[in-house]
């Protein structure tokens, strides 16, 4: 495999590994917890590195993941006092843990390949240089094995406990009354988020980990209303970020991770505007259509009503402003539209319903019924 293909593969595997637990983070309104965890694992990484003297040791991953879970526990405990809200609790906990990591790094680990930049940004381009060998045989980039394992772990957890995760995310109380211990599931999920964040930071950095956990499910959420499809779509989006992001980075000679996160942000922006059902454009058009239809129905009903005095075309703006509060521009556009559609007509200078307009008036009567 070419180094370029290896980088893209690691990027895609990392993105999918992050998107899977990310879907539940987003639905549980814990998106910012991924930010907290991905920063707070730094002291765990430093201490783990001091003990194991290797960035790839499973012990380091486990230790750092424990710091991530500690973050969750601390945030929940502080929030649980009822004195501090969750957002403030997150803002209090992770900078402290992150700072401890920065101090430890400067004091004890300044002479090794581990610095704050590397932790925050990572470097996908270096992935092909750190290889796993076994008995002299090259098994490929180490990051591919690490992230592949994490991906399998996350996929296995989501598959095995899909039903339980869904229930405890939607209705934790019902989950508890049915005996599904949602508290335990919560901490297992947060442990997986921590393991994923620790494993991914070396390649993509802790900032991009947040983007890869939050952006795919948040985007997928706008495109589907089924949980299973949302998860699959999140994974697909992750692969898309990796491939498009890599191409962008190659074209611009920029950071691959940064390019992926930019693609993720742009794609979310496009989806927010253009999603077929829930996008801003679709929502605006729906509202616009409703307003236009109801205006047409109101006008038709008004004209069809035998007790309405005749409306001369020249007086229409004033009369309809008095009756419905419509601005003259709205009235003129409406009359012109309805005349084009042959719903109203002008008979000897006065507005009147056509036969089709009469039907529209009948529709309006049903609203009032």
């Amino acid at each position, binding site marked *: 495999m070419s180094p370029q293909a290896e980088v893209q593969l690691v990027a895609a595997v990392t993105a999918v590994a992050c998107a899977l637990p990310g879907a539940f983070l987003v639905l549980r309104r814990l998106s910012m917890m991924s930010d907290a965890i991905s920063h707070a694992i730094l002291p765990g990484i430093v201490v783990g590195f001091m003990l194991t003297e290797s960035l790839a040791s499973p012990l380091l991953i486990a230790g750092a993941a424990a710091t991530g879970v500690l973050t969750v526990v601390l945030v929940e405990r502080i929030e649980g006092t009822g004195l501090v809200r969750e957002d403030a609790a997150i803002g209090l906990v992770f900078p402290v843990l992150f700072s401890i990591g920065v101090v430890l790094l400067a004091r004890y680990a300044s002479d090794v390949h581990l610095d704050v930049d590397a932790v925050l940004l990572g470097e996908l381009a270096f992935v092909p240089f750190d290889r796993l060998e076994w008995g002299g045989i090259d098994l490929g980039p180490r990051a591919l094995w690490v992230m592949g394992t994490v991906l399998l772990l996350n996929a296995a957890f989501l598959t095995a406990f899909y039903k339980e995760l869904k229930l405890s995310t939607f209705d934790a109380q019902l989950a508890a009354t049915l005996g599904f211990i949602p508290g335990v599931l919560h901490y297992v999920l947060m442990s997986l988020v921590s393991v994923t964040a620790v494993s991914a930071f070396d390649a993509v950095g802790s900032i991009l980990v947040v983007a890869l956990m939050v952006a795919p499910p948040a985007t997928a959420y706008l495109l*589907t209303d089924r949980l299973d499809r949302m998860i699959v779509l999140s994974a697909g989006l992750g692969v898309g970020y990796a491939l498009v992001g890599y191409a962008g980075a190659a074209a611009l000679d920029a950071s691959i991770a940064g390019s992926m996160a930019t693609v993720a942000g742009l794609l979310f922006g496009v989806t927010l505007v253009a999603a077929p059902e829930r996008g801003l454009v679709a929502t605006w058009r729906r509202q616009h259509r409703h307003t236009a239809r109801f205006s047409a129905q109101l006008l038709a009903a008004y004209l069809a009503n035998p007790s309405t005095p005749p409306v001369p075309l020249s007086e229409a703006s004033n009369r309809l402003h008095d009756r419905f509060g419509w601005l003259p521009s709205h009235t003129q556009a409406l009359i012109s539209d309805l005349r084009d559609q042959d719903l109203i007509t002008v008979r000897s200078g006065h507005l009147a319903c056509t036969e089709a307009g009469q039907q529209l008036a009948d529709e309006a009567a049903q609203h009032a019924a």
Partner: protein
Amino acid sequence: MTDVALDIQGCTVAYHDTPVLWDASLTVPRGTITGVLGPNGAGKTTLLKAVLGLVPVASGRIQVFGDTYAAQQDRVGYVPQRGSVDWDFPTNALDVVLMGLYGQLGWFRRPGAHENEQARQALRDVGMLDYTDRQISQLSGGQQQRVFLARALVQDADLYLMDEPLQGVDATTERTIMQLLHNLRDAGKAVVVVHHDLHTVADYFDRVLLLNKRAVASGPVASVFTDANVSATYGTEMRASTEAH
């Protein structure tokens, strides 16, 4: 076999300085429907949650069919307040009803064709079959309430605990729901309903618990639901026989 579905003796719950529930007792026989009434903050929801083990109990003994809740949880159906969940969750009405069967399925087993049919039947019972595939955020408040009810019905429980199942529903839906609850009672099940509307109590319930942190009175509506007891519960001049507000 005991005729008592639910027996609460001297239940006290305190989250902070003051108790939410103080030494409250309630006995619910099978084949009855009980209304739980009291002012806001009287501990009505807390009482249900205490039975379900969702809140820690400082004192008291709670028995479900003469046993612990944990041992009998398959026989208890719970309808939480509609506002307790996120209705923007990506799922449809059928899926929410299926969740009622998760307890019987246990860990790992997924619902299949048989469970789907049960859930559809429950939706049919509450008049929501036409909305099976509807995204839950697109349902009206009354429809969401009926989906919650179907989720409890599908459990085929023997004791139902319902937290304001009539909250925010229109008059037609209210009649449909009450008919369903009376059918459950007539089938020998025990139904406990947290309720707000004083002037429907006599029509809807066989028994009533008047609660204001402590159980002011409980028993058959005819003997317990009196002006004196209602005034003692709400702390103002309220009458059992007329409008509550």
